[in-house]
């Protein structure tokens, strides 16, 4: 297959797939094609999308490649009737998810120790949204279930993999930001930072 044919096939395959496809997935579809060639063709495709007048982009997310729209176009896409945007995560959801993401695999007890509140319900919501999953059991007393993040988590936040999560702040750093953090009174519902 010629280079431009390969690029064309990759565009068509990614278009139909709808979800991120890894190099291995693509090599399987394009049986017999060298993955280095696929990688190059993907790079070529990405550059094509960078030119003026394009509404699409190539993104790398959850260990794969995906065609997605450019953020500038979102106001018009939102006005499409069929577009149902997922509900945003609640503050407690984000808090719990942050703990799961950075400390995984983690038990419910460990999450609750950090948050200082019962977290069963939040955890259930995250499980239902498939952003978090049960990944096994912790050895030891009671063998509690342990939780981790999913592929859906990476997709929801547009992360290539977990290493793309920004580093957790050190205690010292956190302490320094605390006193002059923000003017104090924040009315409920407005959590602006």
């Amino acid at each position, binding site marked *: 297959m010629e280079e431009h044919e390969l690029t064309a096939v990759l565009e068509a395959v990614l*278009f*139909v*797939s*709808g*979800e991120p496809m890894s190099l291995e997935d693509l090599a399987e579809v394009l049986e017999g094609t060298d993955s280095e060639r696929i990688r190059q063709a993907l790079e070529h495709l990405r550059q094509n999308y960078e030119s003026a007048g394009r509404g699409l*982009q190539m993104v790398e997310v959850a260990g794969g490649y*995906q*065609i*997605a*729209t*450019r*953020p500038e176009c*979102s106001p018009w*896409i939102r006005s499409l009737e069929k*577009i149902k*945007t997922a509900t*945003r*995560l609640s*503050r*407690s959801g*984000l*808090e719990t*998810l*942050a*703990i799961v*993401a*950075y400390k995984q695999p983690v038990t419910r007890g460990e999450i609750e120790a*950090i*948050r*200082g*509140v*019962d977290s069963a319900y939040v955890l259930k919501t995250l*499980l*239902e949204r*498939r952003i978090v*999953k*049960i990944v096994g059991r912790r050895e030891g007393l009671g063998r509690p279930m342990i939780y981790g993040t*999913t*592929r*859906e988590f990476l997709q*929801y*936040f*547009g*992360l290539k993999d977990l290493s793309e999560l920004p580093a*957790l*702040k050190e*205690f010292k750093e*956190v*302490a320094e*930001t*605390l*006193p*002059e*953090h923000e003017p*104090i*009174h*924040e*009315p*409920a*519902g407005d959590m602006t930072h």
Partner: protein
Amino acid sequence: MDDLQTSYAVKLPAFEGPLDLLLHLIKKNEVHIYDIPIALITRQYLEYLDLIKSLNLAVAGDFLVMAATLIHIKSKMLLPPSETDEEEEDEDPRTELVMRLLEYQRFKDAAQGLEAREQEWREVFHRPVSLGSGEPTDEINLVDLSLFDLLEALRGVMQRAPEKKDLEIVVDALSVQERMGLILDRLDAQESITFASLFDDDTTRLAMVVTFLALLELIRLKRLRILQTELFGAIRIWKSTSLQPF
């Protein structure tokens, strides 16, 4: 706390929990995290809880536990330094709480980071996953399967099943292994039992199947003997004598 007291209930700041409330008070009073004026903060914390109660809202247990912790720390700080216990002398009673607050704040910050990414990524759309026909499906990719899916599916079956109540017992508790144990237990108490009485407690076909399988297994293992004393008569079951100590 004036701003709180003049507010209507729904205007109260939203706190995720006691740690969140404490961090709020620390920021509000502009005190240093490593030197929390525990008396002041405790007073304001309790005022907040009183306010909640006065608005007839339930105070969650976690907030009460923290109130107790604060009072305990306060009382410890009022005590003169112990002369006998040298190890405890240098220990600031606030240390553990400060560590918890900082740890919690780390994840609050991380959550904000996630929120920013969420915001950014919400502007990016992709095509709905479809297969062949172009119709989105409710199928799950194997690599995305989680135990939650498995259990949800199980729960779905059980809710739909006509014999719901019994099935729950079946799926939850009934195994051939356990049923084998039950049969042997009964034969410890009685010398022999009738075949029919084995199924007395079985309310579903499936339970009967399990019992029957258990019986077959015990026979295969030569733990039981079955005798029918007359044609069409009752079938009786004994424990296998070969296993008896005498």
